[in-house]
């Protein structure tokens, strides 16, 4: 079965997903890691959309990008940023 353009688009999305997940592990500055987690959530929302579940995509966009990133950024006001 030949690959369609959609398959390559999914491949790009999944590669970005793996790259951001690995980057979060290796980045030392925790605020930068949280920002990369925002990029991970955007990609994950697009992946959910590719899997025909726009409901989860909206929840991922709202909870993953908005709430988690903002709450973690607020936490760094009290704790240290370096790992």
């Amino acid at each position: 079965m030949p690959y369609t353009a959609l398959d390559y688009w999914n491949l790009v999305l999944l590669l970005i997903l793996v790259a951001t997940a690995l980057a979060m592990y290796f980045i030392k500055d925790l605020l930068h890691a949280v920002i990369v987690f925002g990029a991970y959530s955007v990609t994950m929302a697009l992946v959910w959309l590719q899997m025909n579940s726009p409901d989860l995509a909206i929840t991922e966009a709202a909870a993953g990008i908005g709430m988690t990133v903002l709450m973690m950024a607020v936490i760094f006001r009290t704790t240290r940023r370096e790992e």
Partner: protein
Amino acid sequence: MRDFILKRAAALILPFIFVYGIYVILHGAVSPGGSFAGGIIVGLSFVAFATIYGIEKGKAKLPEQVLVWTESYGTLWYGLMGMVGLGRGVPFLANKLAGVDLGTPGTLASGGLIPLIGLGVGIRVASTIVTLFFTMMEEES
């Protein structure tokens, strides 16, 4: 974080984010999204307001008493909507069994009790988000 351009841009954008959150809550029965996602969007509009304009103005906009009331009565509203089923002699949170008119499928008013339940959950989630944010900002000082 207190500069002019950010404040003016937020004043333009934040009302639309708030109304979009209400839209997602009320259309939860027929379209993607729902009360949880919509509640987070509504809560984040207030959180962004408090972040940009200062925590004091945010607390003036939503006092602690209002947060306590919306959080408690949102949950109570969910329970009351569930009690409708019990009052009609059918299980808790029953919708069609309780004799609620479901309307035409696909239209906005086709969820029975679900949009009403979602309204309570959305209000509760929004006030929880704002309460979490205010609590964490207080820990710092």
